[in-house]
C-alpha cells in the first residue's frame, strides 16, 4: 500500500465512514463490480451499524436482483428478508432495503410533479420527443438517478442510502447532470431557440433576430422546418416546468455536496479502469465532493507475489520428472503414472507463473496510484459469481476489513 496510509493517524475503515454518512455514492467505470460492491456495503452497514439502509441499484445482474428480491419491482423498495441475512451468518441490527431505478417511471413522476397543470403534463408525456429524450438521451439517466436519490433522502425513511451509479461513458458525467439539466431548461439558448415560436409565428411570420437567422437557415435546409417546430413545441411545454425543475436540480446538486454525502470510487487493478478511477478521484476533489473511499475490486491474492512460492513454482517446472517419480512411490493410483504427474506439476508451476505476472502488474499499478483517499478497501477476485446474499456478504466482509469468518 502507499506510505501515506501507514503514517495516517487512525486508519479509518469503510465501516466508520458509512457510520458517519447518510448517502454513499458508488462510482467507477463499467465492469468493475460497482453494483455488487454497493450492495455489499449496504448489507454490511445494515447488519453492523443498524438502522434502515437502502441500496439503490441501477442495473443489477438478474440473479443479484432476484437475490435482493427486487426483480420487476420498478421503483418500489423491498426489504431483504432477515432470514437471508441470518443465513449468511449475521445477526442483523438493522434492516436492508433494495430498490431499482426505473428511468421512465421516474421521469414521468417528475413531469407530473412539476407541470403547471395536468393538461400540460399529458402533452409532455405524449410528445414523441419526450420519449426519445428520456429513453435515449444518456445524461437523462444520470440526472434522474440523482433526482431519485434526492427524493428518497428527503422522505427521511432511511438512515443510509447507498447508490450505484449508471454506467456512464464518462464517469464524471453524472456529477454534472444536475447543473447541466438546470442550464438546459433555464438557459438563454433555449429561450432564444424557441423565440420565433413564442412570438406567435408559424412559418413565414417568424421574427428572427440577426443571431439566430443563420441557424434557422441551415436547420431548415438540413432538417426541414416541421422537425424544428416539433422541437420548439416540446421545449415550450417543457419550459412551463422551468421554475420547479431548476429549483430541484439546484437542490440535488446541493445534496451531493452536503457533508452527509460521500463518494466511493470502485475500480479493478487493470490499466484502463484504474486510469478512469484516478481521473474520477481528481474530478471529485476539483468539484469539492467528498471522496471517502477507494475500493480495489477483483484483485488477485497476495500469495502470488510470494518469493517462496515463485521458487517452488520454478522447482515444479524444472524437476517435474524427478518429483513425479518420487510421488509415484507413494500410495494412490492417481499418482501412479509419472509421465502424467510430471505434466500436471509443470502445468501447476506454469499457471502460477502466469498469474504471478498479472499479480505483479496489479501491484505496480497499485503502487502508482497518485491520489488515494484515506480509506482503501481491497476485495479479492472470487472463484464464482456473486449472485446471492452469501456472495454479497463475502464481498462485504472484505470491504469492512474482516475477511475471516
Amino acid at each position, binding site marked *: 500500500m502507499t506510505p501515506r496510509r501507514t503514517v495516517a493517524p487512525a486508519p479509518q475503515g469503510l465501516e466508520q465512514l458509512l457510520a458517519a454518512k447518510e448517502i454513499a455514492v458508488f462510482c467507477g467505470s463499467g465492469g468493475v463490480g460497482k453494483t455488487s460492491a454497493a450492495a455489499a456495503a449496504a448489507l454490511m452497514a445494515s447488519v453492523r451499524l443498524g438502522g434502515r439502509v437502502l441500496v439503490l441499484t441501477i442495473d443489477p445482474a438478474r440473479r443479484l436482483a432476484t437475490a435482493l428480491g427486487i426483480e420487476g419491482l420498478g421503483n418500489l423498495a423491498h426489504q431483504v428478508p432477515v432470514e437471508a441475512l441470518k443465513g449468511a451468518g449475521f445477526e442483523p441490527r438493522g434492516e436492508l432495503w433494495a430498490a431499482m431505478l426505473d428511468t421512465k417511471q421516474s421521469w414521468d413522476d417528475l413531469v407530473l410533479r412539476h407541470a403547471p397543470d395536468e393538461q400540460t403534463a399529458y402533452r409532455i408525456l405524449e410528445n414523441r420527443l419526450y420519449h426519445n429524450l428520456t429513453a435515449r438521451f444518456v445524461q437523462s439517466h444520470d440526472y434522474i438517478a440523482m433526482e431519485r436519490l434526492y427524493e428518497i433522502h428527503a422522505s427521511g425513511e432511511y438512515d443510509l442510502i447507498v447508490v450505484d451509479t449508471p454506467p456512464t461513458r464518462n464517469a464524471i458525467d453524472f456529477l454534472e447532470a444536475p447543473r447541466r439539466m438546470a442550464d438546459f431548461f433555464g438557459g438563454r439558448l433555449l429561450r432564444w431557440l424557441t423565440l420565433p415560436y413564442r412570438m406567435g409565428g408559424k412559418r413565414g411570420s417568424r421574427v428572427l433576430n440577426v443571431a439566430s437567422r443563420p441557424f434557422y437557415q441551415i436547420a431548415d435546409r438540413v432538417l426541414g422546418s416541421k422537425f424544428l417546430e416539433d422541437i420548439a413545441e416540446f421545449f415550450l411545454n417543457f419550459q412551463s416546468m422551468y421554475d420547479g425543475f431548476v429549483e430541484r436540480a439546484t437542490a440535488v446538486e446541493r445534496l451531493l455536496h452536503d457533508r452527509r454525502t460521500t463518494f466511493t470510487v470502485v475500480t479493478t487493478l487493470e490499466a484502463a479502469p484504474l486510469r478512469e478511477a484516478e481521473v474520477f478521484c481528481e474530478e471529485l476533489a476539483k468539484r469539492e465532493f467528498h471522496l471517502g473511499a477507494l475500493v480495489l475490486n477483483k484483485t488477485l491474492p497476495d500469495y502470488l507475489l510470494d518469493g517462496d512460492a515463485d521458487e517452488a513454482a520454478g522447482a515444479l517446472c524444472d524437476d517435474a520428472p524427478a*518429483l513425479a517419480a518420487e*510421488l509415484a512411490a507413494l500410495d494412490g493410483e492417481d499418482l501412479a503414472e509419472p509421465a502424467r504427474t510430471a505434466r500436471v506439476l509443470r502445468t501447476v508451476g506454469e499457471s502460477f507463473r502466469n498469474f504471478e505476472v498479472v499479480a505483479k502488474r496489479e501491484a505496480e499499478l497499485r503502487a502508482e496510484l497518485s491520489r488515494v483517499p484515506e480509506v482503501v478497501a481491497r476485495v479479492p477476485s472470487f472463484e464464482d459469481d456473486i449472485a446471492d446474499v452469501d456472495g454479497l456478504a463475502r464481498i462485504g466482509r472484505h470491504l469492512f476489513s474482516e475477511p475471516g469468518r
Partner: protein
Amino acid sequence: MAVVRPAPDLLARRLLFFTGKGGVGKSTVAAATALLAAEHGKRVLLVEVDAKGNLTDLFEQPPVGFEPREVHPGVLAMTMDTEASLREYLKLNLRMPVFGRIGPVARVFEFVATAAPGVKEILTVGKICWDVREIVEGRSDVDLVVVDAAATGHIVAQLGAADSIRELVDVGPVRQQTEWMSELLCDPAITAVNVVTTPEEMPVAETIELVERVRRELSVPLGTVVVNRVLPELFTHTDEATFEALREPEPSRLLERRTGAGVTAVLDAARLAVSLRRTRAAHLMHLLDTVDLPLLYVPYLFVRDHGLRVTRMVADALGEELGL
C-alpha cells in the same frame, strides 16, 4: 477451444462495428482487427466513436483527431467529433463552406443535438457511411472501416439513427441521405456488427440481450461474437484427478520438502485458476446455447504491458480463429 460455427469472411466486408459492455476489451479487439486486416494487405480506417481518446495507445501513438492519421502501416485512425462531422457534411452536401468554429450556430447545434434524438448519432453514423460509400464506389484508398463503436447500451440508438430520423423528418436532404445510409448498413456483404464479450455473467447477459434487440429492432447484419479473455483449460479430466491427489496430505508434504513451503500457494493458485475457468466455462456454454452467431475466442493474456505487443497478440488470436 474449437470454433463451433464457421466464421464469416469478416475482412472481406467494408464496415465492421465492434460493440460490447464496458470493460470487456472492445477497443483492443477493434484495434486488433484493424491490425490483422492491415497485415493482410488492406488499408484500414479505424474510427473511435466513444471518445475516450486512448485507442491510439494500442498502437503506441499519440491521440488523433477527426482528421485520420496513419498510426501503423496500413492503419489510419480518427476520433469521431460530431461538430466536425456536421461541418464536413455542410461543406460537402450544401456547399456551405464553414470556416473555423461555427460560432453561435455551433452552440445551438450542440443544444439541439443533445436534446433531439438521433442527431448526434446520425452525424456519427453518417460520417462513417459516407466513408464506406466512397469505398464501395471506388473513390477511396481505404478498403475497410473498423469502428470502435458505442457500448451495448447505446449502439442500437446509433445504428438505428437513420430510421429514427426518418420517422421525425418528413422532407429535406437529410431524409434522402438516411435512405442510402440504411441500404449500406443493412447490406450483409458490406456491414457486420460484432459483439465483444468476456465469459462473465453480466457481459454474456448483455450480449444475449443485444443480439435479440438488434434482430428485433434493426435490419443491420450481425457478424460474430468475440469472446475475450478466455482462460486456458489447465487439466483434462484425468489430469485433474492427479492434481487433486497432489493436494492430499502425504503428497503435499513430499512436495514441501522438495520444493519449499511456497508450494502450498502454488497449488492454491492452480486451484483458483481451475475454479475461475470453470465458472467462466458455464457462462460460455450459456452464450453458445443462446446465441447462434459464430464465436471467436481470444485467450486471456498473461502479460505485464499494454500497447502494440498486446494488440498484435490479440490480432494473431483472431487471425487463427478466422482461419487466416
